[in-house]
């Protein structure tokens, strides 16, 4: 019984060590490549979403919108991983203090940062999944450079935010 309790907590409550979670993410990407022949990427799913919502031919959706189906699974995965202690919240870690506990500021902050993420990822040709996990593994030089740029920008901005501003 105790074993089952531990297993349940491991699967549906706890977070994992870096090697275990990395193994899972890697195997999922390999599984997608092996089962469907496709290259995993999340930004393409957002492009599909834009294409479906605006019906504008400027967007290039993936065949049969498979990328949109892929990203629709992500919230379900997040739910499953926290099934053991699920509850909804508007709290968001240290960002609560940065935005003075004001939800309006927090929403505005996330909308603007989200805009940077979407615009930048689309321009860079992919985000952390498409460029970092897949692109670097394929051996794409552009993806490796983009990944380094992601990290450099992230380190600079975070250090300014936490060591200079707050």
């Amino acid at each position, binding site marked *: 019984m105790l074993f089952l309790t531990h297993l349940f907590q491991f699967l549906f409550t706890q*977070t*994992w060590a*870096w090697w275990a*979670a*990395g193994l*899972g*993410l890697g*195997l*999922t990407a*390999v599984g*997608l*490549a*092996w089962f*469907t*022949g496709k*290259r*995993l*990427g*999340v930004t*393409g799913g957002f492009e599909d*979403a834009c294409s479906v919502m605006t019906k504008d031919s400027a967007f*290039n959706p993936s065949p049969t*919108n498979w990328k949109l*189906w892929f*990203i629709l*699974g*992500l*919230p379900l*995965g*997040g*739910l*499953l*991983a*926290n099934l053991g202690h699920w509850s*909804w*919240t508007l709290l968001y*870690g240290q960002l609560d203090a940065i935005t003075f506990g004001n*939800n309006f500021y927090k929403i*505005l902050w996330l*909308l603007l*940062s*989200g*805009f940077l*993420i*979407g615009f*930048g*990822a*689309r*321009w860079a*040709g*992919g985000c952390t*999944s498409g*460029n970092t996990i897949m692109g670097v*593994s394929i051996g794409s*030089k552009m993806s490796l450079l983009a990944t380094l*740029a992601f990290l450099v*920008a*992230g380190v600079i*901005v*975070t250090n300014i935010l936490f060591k200079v501003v707050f």
Partner: protein
Amino acid sequence: MAPRKTRLKAIKTAAPRKASKLAPAENPIPYLGFGILFGYFLSKSRATDYDSIEAMFLCREFQLYGVIIVSVAVVSLGLFLLRRSGNKAYSGQAVEMEPLTWDPSRLAGAFLFGAGWALAGTCPGTSLAQIGEGKLIAVATVVGIVAGVWAYKKFKPGIAPKNDAVC
């Protein structure tokens, strides 16, 4: 009751599994399933946690660097084995793994992305997983990302690549 072997044979030959109406490539369910797995592991890795992302960028925790390194290693090895075995997917399609087109202006986009990643404490995939986790404030991030992807197409910067494929 018939002996075991005969019974097994009967199962194998009797009713061939009803073929899905959609061809494997068109059936959305496997893609949804892989999305669920990916979201599950993203959540397990703590990449959906604002404070973990900041701790990564402040170099206070190895966790998320470890996650990236292990996943890149696993995918590299997996794709190598896949190539060695003929580069054929289970669905019968060839495995499509073209590298991203070269264009230095993409680095400008990458810097914007990195800044957004740090400010929001999430990337596109994890923002969706966060909603499932119950962190409902992430809806704002997702709306922002959709707006950003839309705006890129509408107001494409002059220096942006002409052939701008996306993963």
